[in-house]
């Protein structure tokens, strides 16, 4: 698979603050990548460096083997920067069409692209509106549309669904999922459930350091099952531990249990046994997850 982004030894200082500390990673073309971490971890700084908004203090950053913010990345790397706003003086159609033309599209083609991308985010009817006439959520969706103009290889969305109502947040998630065959998305969000649904690869930043760089799909094979219950059941840990394939059960959160599993070829699969146990005991379960949740993996 082709490497889209390669970062090595990246450091960024703001005065005495070490915002990014010797960060190394590679992103290849493929499913969406999650960028997670607590507030102040350096996520937005990393986004800004990758987009070329900030110069790194030291280290190497290669986007398609070129420096960020150079001609090689134009039209191929798109982004929804956090807090960036459109010009209030112009209509949405005029501004997005202008961006299309800057990417080298003809006036006619860029107009068509604007209509296509606004339709993707469910805002075909705001073409003639100015940004100030739109709600916060609508403005955000317009800026997501601007990131989809042309045919970018990488789209970086910083807190794309923050401030959106649940319906539109779901639409954006569906949009990302539907386009992820053609586009490699890099998503930053505090909503781990959202990232878990969309992403296969996770970059976990904390205090400017890359703590984990892992692929979520591998964890399914690592022998964990997460069980979420409708109500708190007193005997559940003992009952689960009585199953032969279960190594350990941890009450990871309220009404959530992380079960370590020993795989055996010739026995009934553990998930089936857990469901049978719930049925016998008349326990209502909410969710059975094959593997650890992203939250349990990270924290």
């Amino acid at each position, binding site marked *: 698979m082709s490497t889209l982004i390669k970062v090595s030894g990246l450091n960024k200082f703001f005065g005495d603050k070490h915002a990014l500390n010797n960060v190394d990673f590679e992103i290849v073309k493929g499913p969406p990548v999650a960028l997670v971490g607590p507030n102040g971890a350096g996520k937005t700084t990393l986004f800004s460096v990758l987009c070329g908004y900030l110069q790194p203090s030291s280290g190497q950053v290669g986007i398609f083997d070129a420096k960020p913010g150079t001609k090689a990345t134009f039209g191929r790397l798109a982004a929804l920067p956090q*807090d960036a706003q459109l010009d209030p003086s112009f209509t949405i159609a005029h501004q997005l069409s202008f961006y299309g033309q800057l990417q080298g599209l003809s006036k006619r083609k860029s107009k068509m692209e604007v209509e296509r991308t606004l339709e993707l985010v469910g805002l075909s009817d705001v073409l003639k509106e100015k940004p100030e006439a739109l709600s916060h959520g609508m403005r955000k969706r317009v*800026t997501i549309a601007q990131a989809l103009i042309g045919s970018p290889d990488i789209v970086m969305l910083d807190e794309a669904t923050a401030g959106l109502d649940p319906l539109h947040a779901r639409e954006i998630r569906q949009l990302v999922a539907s386009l992820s065959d053609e586009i490699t998305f890099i998503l930053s969000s505090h909503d781990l459930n959202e990232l878990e649904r969309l992403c296969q690869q996770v970059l976990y930043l904390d205090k400017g350091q890359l703590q984990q760089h892992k692929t979520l799909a591998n964890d399914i094979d690592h022998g964990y099952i997460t069980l979420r219950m409708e109500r708190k059941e007193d005997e559940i840990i003992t009952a689960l531990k009585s199953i032969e394939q279960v190594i350990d059960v941890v009450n990871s959160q309220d009404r959530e249990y992380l079960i370590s599993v020993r795989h055996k070829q010739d026995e009934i699969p553990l998930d089936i046994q857990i469901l049978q146990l719930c049925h016998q005991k008349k326990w209502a379960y909410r969710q059975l997850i094959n593997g650890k949740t992203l939250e349990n993996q990270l924290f």
Partner: protein
Amino acid sequence: MLELQGLQRIWCLAKFELVRLFMTKRGALALAAFVTVWLFILYYAIGSAVEYVSSKTTQTIGYTLLSAEGMDKLLNWPVAELIVYWVLAMYSFPMFSLIASSDQTCTDRTRGTLRFISLRVTRAEILLGRFLGQVLILAVLIAVTLIATLSIAAYRDPSLLLVGMGEAFYVYKNILIAVLPFIALTSFFNSFTRSSRLVVIVTLLFFTIIPLIIAFIEYKLGMNTYLSYILPGGQISDVINQKELFMSNYVVPVMQMCGYLFLGHIVMKRSSL
């Protein structure tokens, strides 16, 4: 090929600035203010110019005034209106250009709009595109006022329209060249400020403090350091007086423009968006 694409992007950015002036509410308001001021200038100063410059009773006064300023060559121009326009425009347009071009990139940087743009064009192209956009705006405004001046002259005497074409072109070319370093100076100030108001303040400080510093240095050294060449507009009186110095008319303003654009490029390349 890439260079051509770069030029296309610069042109695209420049056109966008023209649209901003002529198609947006804010631009229309600025334009209305400009037109109002120039209507007064055209009506009162330029419209009555002929009395001062051509009339037998006042010619002596006009001649005395212009001679005192070393501008007696201007009396050879056949269109009196153009004489007054030349002097007024040569001093007012550079000052006007400082205010008109005070917001090239700073508001967009503060708002974050430059982040959308910088994913599609280089920072040097943003700087040059916005600069070119302001030059185009000034070129249009100078042309409009010049055409209005010629129209006033032609209304008085239609034969002056053809006679004055040569001088009008000369006036247009020189005013446009004179404003270039002023626009480039604000391009430079825009590369590190966050609002157009701040650009105006920095410009005011620049034109008040820098001459004092230069004077102090030259006083201490007891020699001409040529440092005054960093100040745009120092050559304007030579241009008005038609000394026809290639240095004053072209080299100084163009070098100043290149210098300030280069400084703007250096700062912008390193700045955060």
